[in-house]
């Protein structure tokens, strides 16, 4: 919403590992040709050591791509 300072939840990203909505902050990282956002270093580690090796490109959720 451009004319009012409220962001609806569908405009906010979800952590690339756990899937939690991030209302603010987060950790950005380049992974699998995308800039993804994570809620914590722990979630990034889970992505690198479990999710990406197991699921490949399917590990990337569109909701976690931030630019």
């Amino acid at each position, binding site marked *: 919403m451009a004319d009012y300072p409220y962001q609806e939840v569908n405009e906010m990203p979800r952590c690339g590992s*756990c899937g*939690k*909505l991030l*209302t603010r902050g987060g950790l950005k990282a380049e992974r699998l040709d995308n800039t993804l956002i994570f809620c914590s270093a722990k979630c990034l580690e889970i992505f690198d050591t479990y*999710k990406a090796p197991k699921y490949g490109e399917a590990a990337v959720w569109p909701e976690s791509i931030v630019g």
Partner: protein
Amino acid sequence: MEHTATANEQEIKTDPFLLEIIRNHLITTCKEMGIAMMRTSYSPMFNEALDFSCVVFDGEEEMVGQAPFVPAQIGSTVHVIPTAIAEIGAENLEPGDVIFTNDPYRSNCHLPEFVVIKPYFHEGEILAYTSNIAHMTDVGGMVPAAFGDHQNIWQEGIRFPPVKIYERDQEVPAIFKILVSNVRTPRHSYGDMKAMIGSLYLAERRIAELVERYGADTFVQCCRDIKLVSEKLMRAEISRWPDGEYQADGVLEDDGVVPDREWKINATLVIRGDELIVDFTGTDEQCFGPGNQTFGTTASAAYNAVLHMVPTDIPYNHGCYRPISVIAPPGSYVNVSYPAACVGGNSDSHPTTVDVLLQAFSRFSDKSSAADGGTCGCIGFGGTDPATGEIYAHLHLEGVGWGGRDDADGNDCQFVKNGNCANTPVEVAETRYPFLNLEYQLEPGAVGHGRHRGGFGTRRTFRFLSDGVHVSSHTHRHRVRGWGLFDGEDGSNSVLTFRRKGETEWVTARQAFGKASEGKFSNIVMNEGDEMLFITPSGAGYGSTFERDPALVLTDWQDELISAQDARDHYGVVIDEPSGAIDQAATDELRAGSPGAG
């Protein structure tokens, strides 16, 4: 790369005696908050069903104190509280402020769960947050008392993103006005809200006493150590489990919108040393009705299942959750996306999620338990009370049978695993609302048999005493049964039926009112003299029925919970009814075969 010390490398710095004193002070504070809420609130959901949870978080926004309230709510606080604080900004908080939200998409459990958070300041710094999360009976929307067959969030009711409801110890009138003008029971909602906020002030006083007595630095260090102790204990437990991946799945029978379509929850436990990943990849997409789980509900269900598998003497706080990671795909049944409905995810999907995970644990452990009744029995009643002229909304909760486990039968008539809620006593409900309970008892016969059988569900018949009572429901297990473990039998089904005054036939909402589901529907109108029968499901059985101690079979027969025919058919135990004794020779002969063969 800089090495971050692991939990096992870190040392507990606080004196162990002081640590226990402060840890127990925080737990007692939470209990005291609960008692205050119970005594000062208006609605039976608070003062009878006790559907609320009180917690204390430290300045690092991590849980350091909780008491045995509602597991579903407690687990979600780990996510909803930091999420709400982040959105407002801790830097924007002042002494006397209270944050309020009920937004399910922001890691809350569902819309009726109201969350209030108060920062505790000491010399300009936030040292702790006192908070509680409580189930508000009515939140506006299309049905009284929130549970039905909603298809989007706007039908569910009024939603508040994180806002300040108190600023510098003063009510923010606009927030209260918007709240009370959007619900059916403004007096209850206002009173319950004030009870919630009052308990925050009480807890703040108790924390201030600690800080004054021991000093801020000691308090801060102690909070870190409280979490570290639990984290170490939790990691030690997980280390004992065999590394590997353990998969399980289960279904919810329908979503109240699409008839007969089941929705699958798939889970894989990934054990890696002292860490556990709970991966829900492979779960179905989000459904069209309200059965979807929020991220907060799913994370909470994962914690709930894991805590069933570890010793009960590990102090529950944020440290327990640190070794557990959850993967919940956005837009799936276990991580709903806006604007899909989700009120029933916290009531009926959470228990199935826990049971799916316990099924996965059973791949390597016999300490797991068979599935429970899998429904909170949420039936909402609403209308105008002819005696008072007041609009009412009442949420009925009901106990179910729990699953058998390795060392005992399942509990009878107990609220499912996601809550510690109580039922509203018959006398209280009948005093406040226009209906009568004609019968309320355990439902004999229907149970998941096993070496340790499931617990029994309940049977209750209501008669309505006035016209225009709107009945809505989100209940489960009308067609899908809870699963047995290790050759135990599956549990029984729910029954929810209606009978118009003067009629003899009981009919389901689907048969008589054109609804898509027997258990998930909105606004059936009952009139004076009409009746409703609700039978809740039993728990499932654990272990082979032929391994059940015949003396326990006899006791169940003496208690009129099973028939002599059940004893023979399910357990291979022959009871001589005239003498009331076991016919040992006939029993030995039957048990020489296999269960079900006779």
